């Protein structure tokens, strides 16, 4: 058995060594992270590992001694003892004491983790299939955040793009979450469709997002930087493709970013008032379609039989315009979400126009953002505060 252990260790070490050469980025252990909580969690993690290592050393030590010295082939004769009250009580009590020594610091960290009071900033995180929405509650604006276009192109089945050529493959988004450093940020979590779980290892925790319920957590990042994570709760087909990027900025940079966001929102609102040509709408609609619809209805609008209906040649996309608008805005059943809150009026008008005029659909008509705007209520109530 000693040989086995050595053999296993040999294979493991050589495997690790190979991994080390091939990719300097690999890690073996939990990240220490950039918050007080993440460091406490890491300490707990290491403490339990060392306790287990100690117990393992004793138990496996005794076992391997026995494997070697008490072998029949070495002429060992079996003893006849088969119980010992004192020993049995001892090895029930000792683990109990060890457990208490683990439970005490764990309780302390658990209480810290749970304490969301005195936050200086609140961000609402909503999980969607398969993207995130971040709402800056105090600032009155929000945006969607999803897998970046490069990763998205590379990850398609049968794509010719080598994932290794994509920077931060599957861990990059179009609009990262931005937070200030050294400020206690409270997160409120919910979901629009199914369960998701918001996990950034460098922050030290994950939290599930449950449709219809609000969960809370908090962070206080003490180092500016970019921290990446992923959805951790199985949420359907593209569960593996909804990353999270958090950028922690100094207060000054954060304020600049905030101002730029608000300016952009005003510009977008203005674009909803202008009159668009059909071609402009189709061009913009194609982008919106790829980012928001293609993962289910597929790039060519053919859908997936039995799961996602086709848009190509569908009764809705070739029939009455109002019916099409209603479906996109309000959603349908468990799978088709309501896009009213997810996309701007401009994007909605563009994508509906695109669907009616692409994939061989020949409805021929189109809809102006200004027609959609009155139908989209949320998050308009938040936008009032921006002014």
């Amino acid at each position, binding site marked *: *058995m000693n040989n*086995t252990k050595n053999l*296993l260790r040999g*294979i493991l070490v050589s495997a690790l060594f190979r*991994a080390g050469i091939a*990719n300097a980025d*690999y*890690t*073996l252990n*939990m*990240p220490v992270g950039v918050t007080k909580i993440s460091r406490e969690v890491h300490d707990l993690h290491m403490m*339990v590992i060392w306790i*287990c290592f100690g117990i393992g050393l004793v*138990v496996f030590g005794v076992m391997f001694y*026995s*494997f070697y010295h*008490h*072998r*029949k082939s070495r002429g*060992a004769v*079996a*003893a*006849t003892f*088969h*119980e010992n009250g004192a020993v049995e009580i001892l090895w029930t009590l000792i*683990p109990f004491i060890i*457990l208490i020594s*683990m439970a005490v610091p764990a*309780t302390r960290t*658990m209480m810290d*983790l749970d304490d969301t009071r005195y936050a200086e900033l609140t961000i609402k995180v909503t999980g969607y299939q398969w993207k995130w929405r971040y709402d800056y509650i105090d600032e009155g604006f929000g945006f969607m955040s999803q897998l970046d276009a490069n990763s998205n192109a590379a990850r*398609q*089945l049968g*794509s010719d*793009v080598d994932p*290794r050529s994509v920077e*931060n493959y*599957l861990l990059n988004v179009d609009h990262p979450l931005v937070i200030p450093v050294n400020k206690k940020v409270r997160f409120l979590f919910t979901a629009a*469709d*199914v*369960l998701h*779980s918001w996990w950034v290892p460098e922050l030290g925790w*994950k*939290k599930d997002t*449950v*449709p219809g*319920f609000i*969960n809370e957590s908090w962070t206080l990042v003490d180092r500016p930087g970019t921290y990446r994570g*992923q959805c*951790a709760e*199985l949420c*359907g*087909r*593209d*569960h*593996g*493709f909804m990353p999270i990027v958090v950028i922690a900025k100094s207060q000054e940079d954060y304020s600049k970013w905030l101002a730029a966001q608000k300016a952009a929102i005003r510009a977008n609102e203005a674009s909803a008032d202008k009159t668009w040509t059909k071609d402009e709408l189709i061009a913009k609609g194609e982008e919106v379609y790829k980012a928001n619809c293609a993962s289910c209805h597929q790039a060519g609008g053919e859908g997936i039989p*039995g*799961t996602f209906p086709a848009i190509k040649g569908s009764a809705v996309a070739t029939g009455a315009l109002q019916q099409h608008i209603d479906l996109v805005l309000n959603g349908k059943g*468990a799978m088709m979400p309501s896009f009213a809150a997810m996309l701007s009026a401009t994007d909605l008008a563009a994508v509906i126009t695109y669907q009616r005029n692409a994939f061989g659909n020949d409805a021929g008509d189109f809809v102006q953002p200004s027609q959609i705007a009155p139908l989209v209520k949320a998050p308009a109530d938040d936008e009032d505060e921006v002014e």
Partner: protein
Amino acid sequence: MTSAATTHDDHHDHGPETGWMRWVTTTNHKDIGTMYLVFALAMLFVGGCMILAVRAELFEPGLQFVDPGFFNSMTTMHALVMVFGAVMPAYAGLANWMIPMMIGAPDMALPRMNNMSFWVLVFAVLLLASTLFMEGGAPAAGWTLYPPLVLQSGDNLPFAVFSVHLLGISSILASINIIVTVLNMRAPGMTLMKMPLFCWTWLITAFLLIAVLPVFAAAVTMLLTDAHFGTSFFDAAGGGDPVLYQHLFWFFGHPEVYIIILPAFGVISTIVPTFSRKRLFGYSSMVYATGSIAFLSLIVWAHHQFTVGMPLAGELYFMYATMLIAVPTGVKVFNWTATMWRGSLSFETPMLFSVGFIILFTLGGFTGLMLATAPADFQYHDSYFVVAHFHYTLVVGGTFPVFAAVYYWLPKWTGHLYDEKLGQLHFWLTAIAFNITFMPQHFLGLAGMPRRIPDYAIQFADFNMISSIGAFILGFSQLIFAYVVYQAIKGGEKASAEVWENASKMGLEWTVPSPAPYHTFTRAPEIE
């Protein structure tokens, strides 16, 4: 018990029926045990092929072979098939074969029900498998079938739900049978505290099954009505709560892992003494530890849901209760170690698998202790670390003891010795490949790789490749096992009644000839 003995006396010299109808209509515990075991082996290969599709896709970053939706179906079906099709039937097979022989009974107490519980199982698994061929595919929401995601399933949901109902009926029938057999049919003089530990662990497991399976059946029925009959048990919009399902599921799901592991403990407690040539250390503390584990398993379920948004008091309670399980589990490991201590050890294949179990399961116990630490679980949860952990406990607990048991009792069942060299090769390949597969998954999880994803970031590439290579070796190594079993059934060196040195002191099954006659103990043996 006298009545059972008389009814069997009427035809105790009958052999099995001839032809295939023997297997359809049999009420013989040995035939039914064999069918359970063969079915389990077949499902091991089915579930194995499913996961090899997964590991092939994960061999390299990028999507090469399968659609993400199909990938999710494969991880889901792999788990369901392995848990309900392979591991649980394997232990039911061992129970059928061995419990009557271990307690000196002529057969199981309820032989017709025994036949029924096997065939219901087969139909249940076929029903589940039929979803693979449906438009929209097999269930893909994970084996936990969490709503609301599972409610997005297409036609497969009612099939999966009905399959769970049938699986539950099958297991409950088998459990009732085991409880009645163990409590009523022991040979005169075999008191409960003299009963082999395998019977004890199965007795307690059977009670666990009866306690938790109805809850699971109720939970999936609520899924069905939510999906098709307009209820909102798990829909917040109708006043329900998706997390309620998780509580119901894990009230079943956590004991379920002990349902798998307790009979494993029984097997190990049977085999280790034989190859240590020494009595089991601490028999009564083993019985109490088994009972404590079973009890604790009923009150720790929400440690699977630390991140779901529980009140602080809930987090702390479930952490403390979960940590407590380490105490009786530790007692078991210490007792096995003390059994081997100053024994006269030899390492035939059953002993190798048993020792492999003890070591690897202990490692799985260590990671379990880490996961029990609630704040740290906010990092571990739903990552590959968890995948590694439960394969160290469930693969090691669900297959190593079964392999150990099959090698141990195969000569008794077939009357032929198996090929020891091939058996040992099977062990070493399995143990090494197992570690190549699952050890790197710890590192992947700690580095931040979530579970159930079909594609991953580049920094996870190397360990995934190693893991996939291990998985293929692990899968193909099991063909050796199938071959060794086949060989022993076909022929080979004749086995003595005792088979293993001094085994006749270790259990009643070694006092009957090898192969065991179709009817054993038609007259109850005397226990001193």
